[in-house]
């Protein structure tokens, strides 16, 4: 210790006292060249692959860009703008490219279908309200999720329904025989009151059977019926909106209506089916399995055929359903089966301790599902629900086969217009449709991935 100098540094000149700064990596390892060496030309097979890929890109990309952008026609008023000299136009004989003025002329139809022009503000309002309500719901950091969800699932559909259709529905009763009371609005509300009384009676009877207090059950029944009455009332009020029949709905509007109704209707049904499949009751389980596997085993198009051809047969004489409503029923039942499997995945991911904990607290089955299990299960299947929605959104194009004019249906219908008939018309319009669907579906799939990352707590149980 004594030979250590007082300043604590051993004075030996051959020991380096400062580290040299690190050398930059050699140029062959860094920068663009290094990156290319590592990622593109690391070996002979890899180099061949890279060259092959560049060849493929050379084959596809310039041709596609030329066709859709550089050689495309951008202005014009009819088919002559996009016709070659042989077809009566001015373009060169070997010309082929997109005909965008045709898409421009049909844009309104592709978005709204045959919705009356003077009423378009109603469709626009629905689009805007939907976007305004949906964006905060999708952002995990924004609060008020519960009220937002109630607004989007409860209030928005009713408002959209009234806005799009025009409201002012007329009811004529459904319960009492027509001979007793003539069909009228009065009879409808009389029937409704009778139905409410019957439901209250059932609630009372069930409460008595379980020896519990009947007051809360009756109260809940009354609240449910009151909400239903308000919805029916709103739909019946004359807001002065002209009626727009559903066969005038079309384009993107119709696609959205079908997809959103499908998903909103399929969620509760899917939850019930998933619970039924997990149930201890053999018959409930059997029905759920048959329902789920039955729908999942058949193509959607046969389901749509069924709902458009068979559904009218199964209904009593005189009851007719709108064409759109029939398709909606088919789509909702079909997607409910898929939704049930998604929800089941979530239910199975919840640790058994949560079920047992809920039971130990003395919660009833429905209470434990509502307050403990489902909130957790539904949260972890949000990505799955979004993916189901993407599938449903793409599958809505199938309704064009049964004659509804969704985006694809409108596109196909527009091909019959001789004003724009050219050989490039079909491909141009499909390119537009593909781009439209791609934008929506790609955004949704990004959102699904984002939620998956966010919900991934790193410790999957």
């Amino acid at each position: 210790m004594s030979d250590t100098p007082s300043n604590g540094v051993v004075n030996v000149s051959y020991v380096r006292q400062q580290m040299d700064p690190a050398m930059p990596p050699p140029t062959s390892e860094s920068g663009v060249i290094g990156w290319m060496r590592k990622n593109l030309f690391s070996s002979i097979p890899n180099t061949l692959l890279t060259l092959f890929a560049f060849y493929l890109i050379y084959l596809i990309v310039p041709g596609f860009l030329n066709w859709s952008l550089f050689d495309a026609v951008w202005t014009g008023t009819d088919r002559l703008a996009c016709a070659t000299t042989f077809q009566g136009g001015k373009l060169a004989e070997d010309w082929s490219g997109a005909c965008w003025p045709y898409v421009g002329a049909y844009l309104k139809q592709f978005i709204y279908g045959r919705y009356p022009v003077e009423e378009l503000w109603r469709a626009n309002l629905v689009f805007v309200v939907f976007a305004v309500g949906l964006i905060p719901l999708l952002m995990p950091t924004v609060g008020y999720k519960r009220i937002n969800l109630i607004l989007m699932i409860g209030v928005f559909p009713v408002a959209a329904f009234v806005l799009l259709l025009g409201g002012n529905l007329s009811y004529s009763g459904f319960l009492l025989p027509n001979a007793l009371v003539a069909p009228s609005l009065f009879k409808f509300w009389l029937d409704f009151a009778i139905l409410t009384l019957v439901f209250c009676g059932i609630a009372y009877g069930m409460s008595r059977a379980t020896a519990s207090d009947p007051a809360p059950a009756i109260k809940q029944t009354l609240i449910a019926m009151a909400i239903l009455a308000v919805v029916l009332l709103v739909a019946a009020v004359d807001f002065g909106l002209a009626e727009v029949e559903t066969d005038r709905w079309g384009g993107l509007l119709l696609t959205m209506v079908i997809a959103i109704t499908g998903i909103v209707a399929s969620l509760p049904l899917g939850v019930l089916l998933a619970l039924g499949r997990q149930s201890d009751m053999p018959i409930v389980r059997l029905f759920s399995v048959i329902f789920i596997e039955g729908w999942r085993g058949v193509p959607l198009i046969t389901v749509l055929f069924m709902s458009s051809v068979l559904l009218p047969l199964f209904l009593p004489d005189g009851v007719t359903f709108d064409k759109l409503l029939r398709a909606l029923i088919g789509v909702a039942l079909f997607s409910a089966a898929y939704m049930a499997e998604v929800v089941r995945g979530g239910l199975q991911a919840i640790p058994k301790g949560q079920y047992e904990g809920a039971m130990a607290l003395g919660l009833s089955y429905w209470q434990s599902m509502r307050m403990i299990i489902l909130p957790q299960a539904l949260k972890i299947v949000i990505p799955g629900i979004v993916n189901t929605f993407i599938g449903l959104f793409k599958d809505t194009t199938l309704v064009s086969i049964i004659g509804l004019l969704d985006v694809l249906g409108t596109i196909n219908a527009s091909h019959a217009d001789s004003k724009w008939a050219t050989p490039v018309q079909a491909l141009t319009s499909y390119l537009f449709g593909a781009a439209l669907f791609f934008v929506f579906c790609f955004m949704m799939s990004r959102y699904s991935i984002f939620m998956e990352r966010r919900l991934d707590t790193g410790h999957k149980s």
Partner: protein
Amino acid sequence: MAVQEVASTPETSKVALFNDPKIRSWIFQIVLITVIGWVLYSMAINAATNLERQGIAGGFGFLSNEAGFGVNFSPFIAYTEISSYGTVFWVGLQNTLVIAFLGIILTTILGFTLGVARLSSNWVISRMAYVYVEILRNVPLLLQIFIWYKGVLALLPTAKNSLDLGIFGVVNVKAYFGPKPIFAEGAGTVAIVFLVAVIISILVARWSKKRQMATGQRFPVLWTTLGLIFLLPLIAYFIVGQPLSFEYAVEGRFGPRGGMPVLPEFTALLLALVTYTAAFIAEIVRAGILAVDRGQTEASYALGLRPGQTLRLNIIPQAMRVIIPPLTSQYLNLTKNSSLAVAIAFPDLTSIFAGTALNQTGQAVEILLMTMLTYLALSIITSMFMNWYNAKMALVER
């Protein structure tokens, strides 16, 4: 009282019958059966009255009636316009199966290629696979079918200026005329030799595996089997005097005639189904390979295996366990999606049976029931087969 029998202690003696979980669940289930039964019953009654009013007789008797419409694609079943609706069903099913079979094989090849490409260390290749997957996945299949059918295939040259593909035949906007194989006498011998070669190959593979397990010595199975399967039939082919020739389409007055014409509906549907499903399979394959722990690769390298061997002997067998279940549902999806043939009038089951035959006969209940049950049966058979395969591949734990 019944209540007293259920209750065990005086405190719970007030428990009502309805509060016994067992009894309550049975009451609930009986109510459910009643409701569902009533709904089905009233639907059946309504259907019966409605059908009677429309003058449509129920039952499957219509299946033996003459269909009276032509079908332009039926490779295996003889069909003419005087064939019955029953034959229409079989022709439709045959076409659905043909599309599904070819589609599944092609989409598996394309999907696995894309999935591996997506994980390639080559940046351009993996980006290209990514762009392919994202574009194809996010555009509706029906739209893609139309793009192929009315967009791409419609841009082919007209019948007058058919494109000559040399030995692959001729193509124009009306159809693709492939070479039609003509089998002469002795072709059967070649087929038998081929089968024998396949059987010998399987036996060789088994024997070599057994030997490797016992002694550790390896046998070049791949080259032996390739040699057997290709060389033996080839030798037989020349010995019996080249019994195979191809008939090509010849220039007719209205474009090419003869050969083996493949309609654009078939091509468009197959192309769309294969490319669309391959995008999903690529993602499944990628997820499956990524699911194999990185330590497995490192351990293989440590053992001195080359990258190719690592992939073949270590990674893929383990990844297959993750891949097979979702792959099954993609195969099922492809089969079900082949029903979109109805949009471009390719004569599959949905198109000619649930479409044309239904419109002509009006036997909606019977026809849709048959169609849906057929698809359901196809789904169940496929998933049963894949479950069997999955069980075979599954990890055998001690």
